[in-house]
């Protein structure tokens, strides 16, 4: 089939079952946009390339499919950088197609030239610069394959402008042959006997789950392991939802803002089984004291994660879709034995969970953010797709929503990107048009990509945007309060005259406001009932802290409990 490079991209996208792309046009991708137009390919035009890449990321997290974003050369491509880094840190499958200046102009500081391949090398799983149209189908095939397999991640395909227009005999490769890329699916199963032996020896075991379980869609197998073993479970931020919050062995989130029970259990356990986790510093606190009494078993698909931060006594390298069912097979035979042996320990840690639950100061004059999260959880039966931005509200959502389903919390965990939430929510809604998608965002982060409200209105993505408005950059202000003598350098937003309700309305989105506790439920119900997008400006107190809190670099058992007696 003789077609142009631009048409070849459309064909390749169809071959990869892509039905929507996010993007923004410009000079070097004009030919590609012409082909999109002629093919009537579904394209979501955001208001900013950063919006497009976060939307593609939200789409990918919500659906499990590869998100696709298109941008032009130079500033278009560099506007993707934050979004690519966000996806990279959380292992999200993305393919970013960027235009590049024509081959003869490359390397001459031409108009709108940026070396996006060089720029994105440390934040992509792989990247390409395509200078010959014949290389295009292979590069795209590989890009999708690499993005989606093994430990997922973003791939950039930078394409010179003249390649889009060049004609050639298009054929999409049937398979990928990459000598240097063979993601392990099935690992060494003999190691599982050793894992089982450790499980049988342990008196105080703890299962520690992370984003890898969500990414590999292994929550069913995980639940089976947990039910069969009777072991208590803790989760990272990224692992929330892969086990239902109300599971009787669940102790909540671990780490800087984790529960008392999760942090104490980590400190006390004698066996820690990490599944799809990467022992981030926000989780471990002081590394040398992290789970210091425990043997550590690490399940991960990426061999480079093993021994990166925490030294593992046993490693199970492979896809969770292989390792968990295989382990369950063995655990099944000793299920009663394991449950019996951990009974006392489970009782102890569950008592911690019950005696020192997450709480907050009730205040009848103010709308408390935690109460908002709980109310939304109740109104949606814990069943909505929840998106957050970054800051205090993100932690309150993690603590109080009570996630029931995998892939139901979309949040920038690794990079902590403010401005992620709104565009990611649009992408999630685009991928899951029939699910309620609710965004929690701070008044700071909302303004970072609020232009995308206009896109929400245009495409009628009915996301509910709940601004937890504390008139400050809450999380930073909290650190200033705790560690910088209350000197609020550049964190007050009280001077802002922006009216979020009017802003929403100006962009064609319904706007509501909650200032008093008694308005909360009614207004939330009203917002949920509106068929289109809604912004709710929820006024919360300025001075509130997220508790518990382990100061950066301290041991996990050194929690400041705040609301609860210390």
């Amino acid at each position, binding site marked *: 089939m003789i077609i142009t490079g631009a048409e070849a991209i459309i064909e390749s996208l169809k071959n990869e079952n892509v039905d929507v792309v996010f993007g923004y046009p410009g000079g070097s991708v004009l030919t590609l946009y012409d082909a999109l137009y002629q093919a009537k390919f579904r394209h979501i035009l955001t208001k900013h390339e950063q919006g497009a890449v976060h939307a593609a990321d939200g789409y990918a997290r919500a659906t499990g499919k590869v998100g696709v974003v298109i941008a032009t050369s130079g500033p278009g491509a560099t506007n993707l950088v934050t979004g690519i880094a966000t996806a990279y840190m959380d292992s999200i499958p993305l393919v970013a197609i960027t235009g590049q200046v024509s081959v003869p102009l490359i390397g001459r500081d031409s108009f709108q030239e940026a070396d996006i*391949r*060089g720029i994105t*090398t*440390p934040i992509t*799983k*792989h990247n390409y*610069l395509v200078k010959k149209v014949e290389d295009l189908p292979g590069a795209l095939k590989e890009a999708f394959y*690499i993005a989606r397999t093994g430990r997922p991640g973003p791939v950039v395909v930078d394409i010179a402008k003249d390649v889009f227009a060049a004609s050639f005999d298009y054929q999409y490769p049937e398979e990928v042959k*990459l*000598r*240097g*890329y063979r993601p392990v699916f099935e690992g060494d199963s003999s190691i599982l006997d050793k894992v089982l032996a450790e499980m049988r020896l342990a008196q105080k075991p703890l299962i520690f789950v992370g984003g890898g379980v969500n990414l590999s869609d292994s929550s069913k197998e995980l639940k089976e392991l947990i039910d069969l073993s009777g072991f208590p479970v803790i989760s990272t931020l990224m692992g929330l939802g892969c086990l239902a919050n109300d599971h009787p062995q669940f102790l909540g989130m671990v780490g800087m803002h984790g529960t008392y029970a999760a942090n104490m259990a980590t400190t006390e356990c004698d066996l820690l089984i990490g599944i799809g986790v990467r022992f981030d510093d926000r989780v471990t606190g002081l590394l040398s004291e992290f789970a210091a009494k425990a043997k550590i078993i690490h399940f991960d698909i*990426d*061999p*480079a994660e*093993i*021994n*990166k931060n925490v*030294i593992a006594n046993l490693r199970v390298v492979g896809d969770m879709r292989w390792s968990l069912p295989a382990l369950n097979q063995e655990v099944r035979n000793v299920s009663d034995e394991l449950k019996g042996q951990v009974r006392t320990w489970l009782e102890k840690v569950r008592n911690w969970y019950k005696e020192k639950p997450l709480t907050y100061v009730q205040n009848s004059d103010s709308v408390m953010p935690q109460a908002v999260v709980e109310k939304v959880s109740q109104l949606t039966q814990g069943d909505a797709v929840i998106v957050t931005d970054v800051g205090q509200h993100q932690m309150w959502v993690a603590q109080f929503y009570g996630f029931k389903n995998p892939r139901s919390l979309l949040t920038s965990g690794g990079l902590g990107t403010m401005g992620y939430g709104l565009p990611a929510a649009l992408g999630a809604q685009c991928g899951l048009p029939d699910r309620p998608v609710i965004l929690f965002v701070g008044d700071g982060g909302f303004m970072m990509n609020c232009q995308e409200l206009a896109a929400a209105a245009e495409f009628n993505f009915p996301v509910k945007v709940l601004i937890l408005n504390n008139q400050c950059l809450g999380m930073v202000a909290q650190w200033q309060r705790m560690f910088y003598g209350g000197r609020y350098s550049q964190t007050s937003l009280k001077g802002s005259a922006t009216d979020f309700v009017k802003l929403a309305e100006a962009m064609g989105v319904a706007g509501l406001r909650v200032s008093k506790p008694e308005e909360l439920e009614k207004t939330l119900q009203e917002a949920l009932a509106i068929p289109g997008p809604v912004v709710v400006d929820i006024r919360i107190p300025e001075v509130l802290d997220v508790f518990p809190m382990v100061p950066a670099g301290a041991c996990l058992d050194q929690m400041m409990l705040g609301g609860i007696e210390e």
Partner: protein
Amino acid sequence: MKHTLAVLVENKPGVLTHISGLISRRAFNIESIAAGYTEEADTTRITIVVEGDEIEQEQVVNQLSKLVDVIKISDLTAVESIQRELALIKVKASAATRSDIINIVEIFRASIVDVNRETMVIELSGDETKIDALCQVLDDDHGIIEIARTGKIALSRGPIPAKEQ
């Protein structure tokens, strides 16, 4: 402890940048790095000498292996291997000092590849310590003007190539 790694990579533009970028970003301690063509046109062989304990060494191998263009890494420290480096040394030489330099060159089994009125260029291949030793003598006695060294390359002794190890 030092490890000598043979890293086979796709012979494509950008691969070396990928590798050196990763090494500096992850703050790995690399002593030398040398790249060149191999018996296969589409493969480049990079010899990397890493300094660090077992855990660090393992991280280097695992992180490098993640790069899509890295085909194979083999640790030549684990097997018997031949390790060589090439050096070109430009040394100050007058008519009066030339014969002494020639003597030194012979002792080291080096060779003289260029001579003019004020300098000589000496070529030596060998292991690192031998090259260091020659440089020391030449510098102390005659003065070195400049040195170019390739960094170490290495090959295992047995019949099995790195790609099959």
